């Protein structure tokens, strides 16, 4: 079947079979940040944005994304680098395998809730499993990032 997906702002038309999964399709387009972790729709490693909403690409048929926008970490490099630095500062990425999916969903959280509470962070990111860290490092990294953003914002307002 012929489908057209706007992947990371670029329109791509390709031939897929009816049961091609979105994860396999985006990886075939060179988006290797999207990982297959659990195969049971539980781990969050394969998170991509489908029309700006975070979804598990391991459970979406590529044909269902026809005519839609798909964004992977490759399309969010600046945003991801900015936030990722705070995670790295805490040594929270460790083996790094869960990191792309985690960063994607964290960015989705910041878009939906720019100033989340710790409880809201835990709830939003509950579907991103990490078997190295115990999540404490990630939480510190997120809180530091949010504090830094707030500071940056208020500094900007002062300049004005």
């Amino acid at each position, binding site marked *: 079947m012929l489908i057209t997906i706007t992947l990371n702002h670029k329109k791509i038309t390709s031939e897929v079979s009816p049961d091609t999964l979105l994860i396999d399709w985006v990886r075939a387009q060179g988006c290797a940040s999207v990982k297959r972790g659990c195969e049971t729709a539980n781990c969050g490693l394969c998170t991509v944005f489908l029309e700006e*909403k*975070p979804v598990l690409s391991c459970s979406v048929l590529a044909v269902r994304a026809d005519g839609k926008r798909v964004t992977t970490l490759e399309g969010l490099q600046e945003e991801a680098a900015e936030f990722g630095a705070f995670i790295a500062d805490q040594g929270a990425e460790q083996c790094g395998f869960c990191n792309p999916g985690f960063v994607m969903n964290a960015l989705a959280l910041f878009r939906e809730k720019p100033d989340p509470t710790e409880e809201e962070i835990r709830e939003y990111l509950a579907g991103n499993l990490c078997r190295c860290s115990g999540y404490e490092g990630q939480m510190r990294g997120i809180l530091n990032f949010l504090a830094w953003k707030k500071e940056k914002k208020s500094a900007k307002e002062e300049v004005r």
Partner: protein
Amino acid sequence: MVTIRNYKKAESLEEAWRLNQQRGNRILGGMLWMKMGKGTIQTAIDLSGLGLDKIEETPEGWRIGCMVTLRQLELHEGLEKYTGGALREALRHIVGVQFRNLATVGGSVFGRFGFSDVCTMLAAMDSYVELYRGMEAAPNVEAAQNVETAQNVETAQHVAAAQNVETAQNVEAVQNVEAAQNVEAVQNVEAAQNVKAAQNMGAASNVGMTPNMGVVPSVEAPQNVKAAQRERAVPNVGAVPGAEVSSDGVSVGKVFLGGAPIVRVPMREFLSPGYGKAPLSKDASEKTAEKASGNVAEKADGNAAGNASSGYDRDVLVSVLIRREPAAYCYQSVRNSQTDFPVLSCGAAWISGEGGHRLRLSIGARPARAICLESGLFSNEMPQEEARAFGEYAEEHIPTGSNLRGSAAYRSHLVRVLAMRAALRLGGNGKC
């Protein structure tokens, strides 16, 4: 992963329904559970182009399209307010945001999974499924049976009505001494039936039971037993073409929605194991169930995923209707770890009516699918000792089973604790 040979985005409900009458074709929900299966789907039918992804407020409540995601439902302000946060509580522990952005209401309800928090919560509410041309031409049902069924329309109407009898009617009926005297005997019958049901498939029927706690028992139980008996005689109950029953403003049976022929079935009836089982397809569905139990995940969760070939399986679930009722809700679940399937789930409604309140309890992940229990009348407040007695009653009467996540004994203990907490939270002074 399943193999899909063809994919079709349906352009109308009629097209989807026609495609779905063919064995080997299946309707896609969010595909989260379906994807994990094996086997081949001839044509995967996608309903996502039909505008069924909306939650619409109606005079009677809310109509939730089958393609509405669990996340949409979770974030819906009107339903959040109406349920006092109970609906959100039922949804927010399901895996993660990315999962709930895909999983659909239609897929969750139609799957009738034992572990489903969605089904457990909806069963605690006054909710209905709306099926396009429901059961109209289910395969394996011969014309002769349809004639017989049609002759039983009146009976079917009584059954549907009986299952929707409202508090006021119960109160009146309870004054009938004979009915009250029958309650105990009927409870025994119910319990026995449930044990049998639990043993078969691990799925038990919707029961209305009456704790004997010094309050006037409702006659819900006797009516449900009659309904259960009739259900065996009339397998297509609630979905009989032509049946139209009005019960307090909501018609059940055949209705028209925007010109489309729809059969509306109460949620608790839809979740009961007797629903939709055409006699000729029974053997087939049992065989499928046996086959499906070979799948570790399905077996572990004791759900009825094997009902693939029962008559109702060819229906198209268009929407779920939540009807407003004068009730307060709460939802609790126990999980071994965050985001896992629940070990036990518990939805509850505290329904205000003439002369007092009733408590409707829905227990899911037993591990079989949700089962309901309704109390008799309580005065305005639920004293601690009555809440305790209600918990004990629930523990005694709600069948549980064992799987990887917990033993039957542990689950029964949880039934007691969660039922008591629900009673205190909704009817008491808030202290648990």
